[in-house]
């Protein structure tokens, strides 16, 4: 018989899942109750709450958010086949065998620089394509163990559950903001304030409850990576990867926004980044990530705290072949994902409409 070891952390994760499942159901009930109250006032001539005009509108806003959340986001990126990066698949197979987790189903190259894992049933490794040109094979292997640590601890299952609820709250919030923005008069816009306030509060409550749990899961995954590679190797990978992605995520959006405002775009965002990765920027990024302080609502601990947890005080230079050498045609992938990143930045900066799919 399988033995289950319920820790405080897992009990906390279960209680969060219970709470946000009930929050989801309550939002559904609230939306239907408000819609019904509006129906009583507008169409049935029956006694409701007396505020049927207002509750009906709020019910519509909530209902739109719930319906919208049922449509899943389009998955970014390119699913890799073994022939695209045979060495990467070999590395992954080796790591999976060593850690004895169930095999990872999919490797997906995604726009941007993040390396992450996701999936409730289908285990996916997401590799931000911006990291290919800088991160070394050895560093990537250490980071891979960190990501496998999340799979081993079933963090992605908890994250997938909670992700559905968070997305619903996020879409409630966006639909409330849109109602506010597109209302012809403030007297009408103000009707949507309760749903705006409710979704804002719930989103912050979610972050407040999830952040400490997420940080502890990161520490656990760090420890898992350190025990399967070694603490110094993982710390080295973590610091260099963080510094490069920090520089990328600060520099490239500025360049992209500038070009988009001139109706121009880069054909390969990630290749352009190498021009800006010189000594001054590298040092500035390193200082920035190492001096960054941790905020309560951050999902990840600060780099300082992560290094302290690993008992590592000194970081070496990163040397060796970069990850791009594992991809025979890495530039082809970079160009394919360049527009996706540009569109994401354009939407976030307000230069492009949220429905933009292509820059051609």
């Amino acid at each position, binding site marked *: 018989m399988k033995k289950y070891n319920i820790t405080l952390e897992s009990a906390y994760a279960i209680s969060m899942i219970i*709470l946000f499942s009930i*929050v989801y159901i309550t939002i559904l009930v609230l939306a239907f109750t408000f819609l019904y109250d509006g129906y009583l006032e507008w169409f049935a001539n029956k006694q409701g709450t007396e505020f049927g005009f207002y509750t009906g509108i709020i019910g519509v806003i909530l209902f739109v958010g719930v319906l919208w959340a049922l449509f899943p986001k389009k998955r970014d990126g390119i699913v890799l086949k073994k022939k695209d990066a045979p060495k990467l698949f070999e590395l992954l197979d080796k790591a999976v065998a060593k850690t004895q987790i169930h095999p990872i189903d999919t490797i997906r190259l995604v726009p941007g620089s993040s390396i992450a894992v996701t999936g409730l049933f289908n285990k996916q490794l997401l590799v931000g394509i911006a990291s290919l040109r800088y991160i070394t094979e050895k560093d990537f292997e250490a980071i891979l163990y960190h990501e496998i640590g999340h799979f081993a601890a079933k963090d992605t299952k908890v994250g997938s559950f909670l992700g559905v609820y968070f997305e619903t709250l996020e879409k409630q919030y966006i639909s409330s903001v849109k109602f506010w923005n597109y209302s012809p008069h403030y007297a009408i816009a103000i009707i949507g304030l309760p749903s705006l306030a409710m979704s804002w509060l719930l989103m912050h409550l979610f972050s407040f409850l999830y952040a400490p749990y997420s940080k502890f899961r990161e520490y656990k995954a760090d420890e898992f990576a350190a025990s399967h590679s070694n603490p110094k190797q993982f710390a080295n990978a973590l610091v260099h990867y963080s510094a490069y992605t920090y520089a990328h995520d600060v520099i490239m959006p500025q360049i992209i926004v500038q070009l988009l405002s001139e109706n121009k775009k880069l054909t390969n965002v990630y290749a352009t980044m190498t021009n800006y990765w010189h000594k001054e920027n590298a040092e500035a990024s390193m200082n920035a990530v190492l001096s960054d302080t941790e905020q309560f609502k951050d999902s990840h601990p600060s780099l300082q705290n992560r290094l302290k947890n690993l008992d590592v005080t000194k970081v070496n230079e990163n040397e060796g072949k970069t990850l791009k050498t594992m991809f025979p045609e890495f530039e082809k992938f970079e160009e394919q994902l360049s527009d996706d990143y540009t569109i994401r930045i354009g939407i976030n900066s307000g230069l492009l409409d949220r429905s933009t799919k292509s820059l051609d």
Partner: protein
Amino acid sequence: MKKEKSIFVKVGYLLGIIFCLVASISLVYASYMMISWTFSEHPDIVYSDYSNSYDYYENEKSGQDSDTISDTINGETIMFQELGFEKYAGLVEVSYNLNVPSDTDSNGLEIYFVKSVNGYYQFANSYDSIVTDYKSCQKKNVMTTSGSCTIGNGGGIIIYNTANKPRSFTLSFTIKYDPSLIESN
């Protein structure tokens, strides 16, 4: 590498678990209340059953008028009898006498006076809210009662059957007013 969690972390997790469970129970209760309200009976809004049945202007010179209504209210219903005048620069005193037949049940039969028609609308839309307009002269579960109340333009008496069963009553009333205060068009 394995590190023990500090006592603060353990307390933090425990507090978090308690918060999640208490919040979950509260939300389940709130959902239950909303579902109950949705599936509860929502009576029709009856603006006035007798508003056109009585013409005070016939005897306006006397400064006093009387009438009697005998009726049976089937199911949960609100009846409104307008007693004031549309254009009257003052207040009208209403003396009333309500009787429920001794062989019937009065449980759930309530009467309220409203000083203006707005009070009736407030009552009809949310009879359980705090509306001072009709609180002063209310009588609940009455068998036999009498009294008086002062109303203004468009005011009147509400007879509310909260029970989902027929309720019979006889209401006789007298209104006293100053004919000189009735405004002509």
